[in-house]
């Protein structure tokens, strides 16, 4: 026998699924409870946080070739600014923003480098943070993804093939471009060619109201500079002599750039694996890490 029963109607709980939320990066519509954008795989938490705080975070791109040291630089930078807030204070927004810091510093403390950033966008680390500068009353909201060099290389070879890189670079207000000083010191020209391709790609990006990349601030960071001390004495002269093509393009295509030398380790050795040789740090002594980022923020701050 069927007994009639009174069942409360809970369908109002689904109302938030009926309206789509735009991805902060690519603008694609996603349901409210989506974790990663269905189109570009950027964390939807960025859009939620931006909507909740009613601010639009600035995007900063960190670009460089494979194994240039982007992950180590960004992880170290965030950890340094979190631990010692004298020059500027960094507060991570959301637990996902601490992943990069945790992975990097944990690996360095164990005497190894963090694993390479996976090629798949759903596994990239995104950092959303608030920066308080002593000379600025209102804090800056920043988003910095850790893009793998392979993804950038693919995008350079096949423009618009990656759904993250183009919208990210179109919306970024500034960039950190990393160049491997150790490879330049060894006479390799790969870094020179990669960087030239990157600048050519940036020059082709035009995104409505934003200024072209020729007017956006770009910090050129020579990484692994501990392996070539002259790099610290005069980074600009080092870049000019070791990467002449890139240097000429910088002068022609960028109007607001500055060159820095940076290193996280004080020396490296190699561990022989079954199939390859792996670099391991001998000691951790960060040098020149905060300066490029500080310069970039100063340039961004001057614009607001």
């Amino acid at each position: 026998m069927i007994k009639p029963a009174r069942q409360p109607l809970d369908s109002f709980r689904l109302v938030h699924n009926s309206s789509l939320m735009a991805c902060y990066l690519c603008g694609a519509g996603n349901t409210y409870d989506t974790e990663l954008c269905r189109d570009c795989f950027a964390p939807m938490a960025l859009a939620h946080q931006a909507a909740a705080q009613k601010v639009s975070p600035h995007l900063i791109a960190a670009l460089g070739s494979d194994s240039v040291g982007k992950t180590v630089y960004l992880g170290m930078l965030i950890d340094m600014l979190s631990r010692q807030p004298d020059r500027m204070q960094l507060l991570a927004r959301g637990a996902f923003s601490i992943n990069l810091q945790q992975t990097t510093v944990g690996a360095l403390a164990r005497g190894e480098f963090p694993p390479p950033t996976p090629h798949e966008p759903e596994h990239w680390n995104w950092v959303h943070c608030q920066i308080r500068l002593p000379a600025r009353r209102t804090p800056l909201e920043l988003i910095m993804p850790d893009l793998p060099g392979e993804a950038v290389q693919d995008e350079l070879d096949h423009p618009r093939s990656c759904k993250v890189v183009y919208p990210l670079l179109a919306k970024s207000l500034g960039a950190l471009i990393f160049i491997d000083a150790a490879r330049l010191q060894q006479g390799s020209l790969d870094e020179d060619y990669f960087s030239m391709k990157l600048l050519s790609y940036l020059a082709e990006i035009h995104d409505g109201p934003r200024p072209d990349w020729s007017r956006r601030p770009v910090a050129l960071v020579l990484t692994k500079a501990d392996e070539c001390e002259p790099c610290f004495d005069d980074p600009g002269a080092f870049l000019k002599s070791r990467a002449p093509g890139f240097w000429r393009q910088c002068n022609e295509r960028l109007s607001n750039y500055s060159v820095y030398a940076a290193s996280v380790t004080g020396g490296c050795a190699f561990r022989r694996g079954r199939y390859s040789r792996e670099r391991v740090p001998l000691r951790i002594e960060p040098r020149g890490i905060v300066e490029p980022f500080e310069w970039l923020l100063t340039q961004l701050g001057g614009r607001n």
Partner: protein
Amino acid sequence: MDWGRCNVWGSGLGKTTSVRQFAAGVSVGGVYQLIGNVWEWTSGDFNAVDAEDQPLELLSPLRAIRGGAYDTYFEQQACCAFRSGERPFSRKHNIGFRCALCACDVAGPRPEAEALLQGASQ
């Protein structure tokens, strides 16, 4: 580690200091800044091993340095047990040296030892 007793990254100075700083961190024998400020050269070779004691490959022979410097980030790398390496002719912003003499070389002749030596020669 108490950051107030030595000059490492966590101490926040960000540069080298006078050897006479950090009096609270002197050793039992009264030696200043055995930890931090600048790495100190030693005459020993640096045989690099990883955390599992497996030997590491070096691009060139290195000499051992000890003690950590003002920019040493991890406290476990600024202790007596930790060694790192550097090329013997390298000159860096955070590596220095300490003049050390054996106590027996500066204490002068000891009468008992002199007497023993004379007895042995006779």
